[in-house]
């Protein structure tokens, strides 16, 4: 690892720790840094109020933000490797919309099947990905066709979400905050599920690092090396879909993280996935946690879903990328 890469890791880790502390001490109530210190070092003296607010509200929320950022950034990094395209992103390509459609079907129509939510979201994401590749793949993947296919997939699943929402408008209020990507309602048990699923999916993503590097070569060279190109692509894409479905289940659609973070990470640490993927994961966690804390500090007492904040930062960045890419 070069000095520059090491520096990037150290600085980002320090920022992450600062953000973790900030996230624990900021919020609508009067619980402050003093209470946090007291809870950590003298747990017996902490008040019940502080204990509940910190352990059951702020801690799960903080963990949720980190997991969501990490999985979305990892998902974006993998999907960019598969598509060989900096514009590829699970949100833009409609994979998240596919996952949320299936999640919504469970939430609104079959609430008894709630434990199956992650699986349903994953299946939805895979279906969206398959439709996307069929639409976008023609003599390789051209950037413009890829983005336009994403628009089509997004519109298709968005329309289906619209139809379901209208038929189940009585239950829509909950689904709406969820759809906008809010971290507000994460319970300790949600956080636990997120940590377990994210951990597994992130571990899987680390296993395919060498294959991600391989995909930087052209198709014929990869075939020459005796690799099964379609299978490799499909495995990596499946892990990418899994990663983004996890966060969709718990916090709904948070767009642009998978687009921006891997891109910035690439500018900072280069294209070798051995460094790029772990760094993207770290940077993604910092970004989502920082955005959520920023939202708490600025808009409080109004609760602004973090997805909206991130879209406000992400959309201009995406347009800037489009402009720079000359597609």
């Amino acid at each position, binding site marked *: 690892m070069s000095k520059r890469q090491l520096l990037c890791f150290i600085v980002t880790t320090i920022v992450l720790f600062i953000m973790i502390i900030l996230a624990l001490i900021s919020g609508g109530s009067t619980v402050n840094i003093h209470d946090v210190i007291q809870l950590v070092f003298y747990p017996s003296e902490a008040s019940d109020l502080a204990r509940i607010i910190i352990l059951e509200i702020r801690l799960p929320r903080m963990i949720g933000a980190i997991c969501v950022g990490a999985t979305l950034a990892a998902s974006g990094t993998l999907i960019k490797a598969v598509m060989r395209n900096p514009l590829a992103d699970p949100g833009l390509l409609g994979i998240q919309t596919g996952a949320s459609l299936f999640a919504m079907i469970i939430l609104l129509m079959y609430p008894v099947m709630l434990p199956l939510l992650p699986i349903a979201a994953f299946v939805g994401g895979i279906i969206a990905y398959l439709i996307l590749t069929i639409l976008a793949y023609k003599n390789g993947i051209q950037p413009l066709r890829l983005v336009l296919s994403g628009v089509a997939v997004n519109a298709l699943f968005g329309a289906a979400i619209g139809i379901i929402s209208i038929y189940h408008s009585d239950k829509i209020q909950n689904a709406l905050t969820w759809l906008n990507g809010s971290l507000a309602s994460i319970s300790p048990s949600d956080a636990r599920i997120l940590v377990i699923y994210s951990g597994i999916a992130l571990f899987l993503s680390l296993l395919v690092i060498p294959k991600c590097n391989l995909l930087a*070569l*052209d198709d*014929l*060279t990869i075939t*020459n*090396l*005796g*690799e099964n190109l379609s299978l490799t692509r499909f495995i990596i894409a499946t892990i990418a879909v899994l990663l983004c479905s996890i966060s969709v289940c718990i916090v709904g659609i948070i767009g642009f993280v998978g687009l921006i973070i891997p891109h910035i990470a690439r500018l900072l640490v280069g294209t*070798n996935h051995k460094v790029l993927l772990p760094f993207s994961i770290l940077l993604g966690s910092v970004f989502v946690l920082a955005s959520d804390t920023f939202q708490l500090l600025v808009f409080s007492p109004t609760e602004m879903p973090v997805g909206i904040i991130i879209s406000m930062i992400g959309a201009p960045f995406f347009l800037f990328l489009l402009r720079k890419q000359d597609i």
Partner: protein
Amino acid sequence: MIEIQNLTIHYGAKVAVDNVSLQIKKGTFTTIIGPNGCGKSTLIKAIAGLFKESGCHILINGKYRNAYERKEFSRMASFLMQFSEVPMGINVYDLVSFGRLPYLKLFQSMRTEDHKYVEWAMKKTSVYQFKDQMVSQLSGGERQRVFLALALAQKTEILILDEPTNHLDLKYQYELLSLIQKLNKEEKLTIVCVLHDINQAIRFSDEIYVMKNGKIVVHGVPDACITKETMHQVYDIRCSINKIGKHHNVHIL
């Protein structure tokens, strides 16, 4: 030894390779030439195994192409096709190291002998001094040598090349072909190559196959099969053939 038996390949209704049979002996430098669209690239891609359905017409060392496992074939033959994409953000050493992939199991990392072959391949192609540089920063000729090093690191006995000199300056074209010839002589590599330039084909090959409309018109040692008549018949040009140095040379009139 590569043997092709009655190979026919269609692109839709168009016949690209029309009932071709040929034999390429071990350790020879064989070149396929012909005008654009004659099927030479298709033929060489078929030998490389890029058309699955034609695998039962191609025998490599006595075994049908489609009977080979992917990695098994990658240890037997490597191919270098015309490049359009330059891999970004990868250095020369890492790129050449990919050549060892056919020898490694899933998740297995490079062994000492793998590093040895990678260094050997880089030294053979004189790219060792660039080993820490990014491939994208090299010139066209250097880049092509790096890809040749990758193919060499595979330690195959057959090397298949589709117009390897494309887009290179004249100096680098001869440099690359001389290097390939050297590998053919020193490492006993069987070379199967598509070339555009007839005089380069005459100069470097042991045997030439001349194709037109998907068929092999003539084949044999260069001096015998490149004649005024063949050139007129295949390329529709009038030429004279003169001996310059050791080799014949085609001059268009």
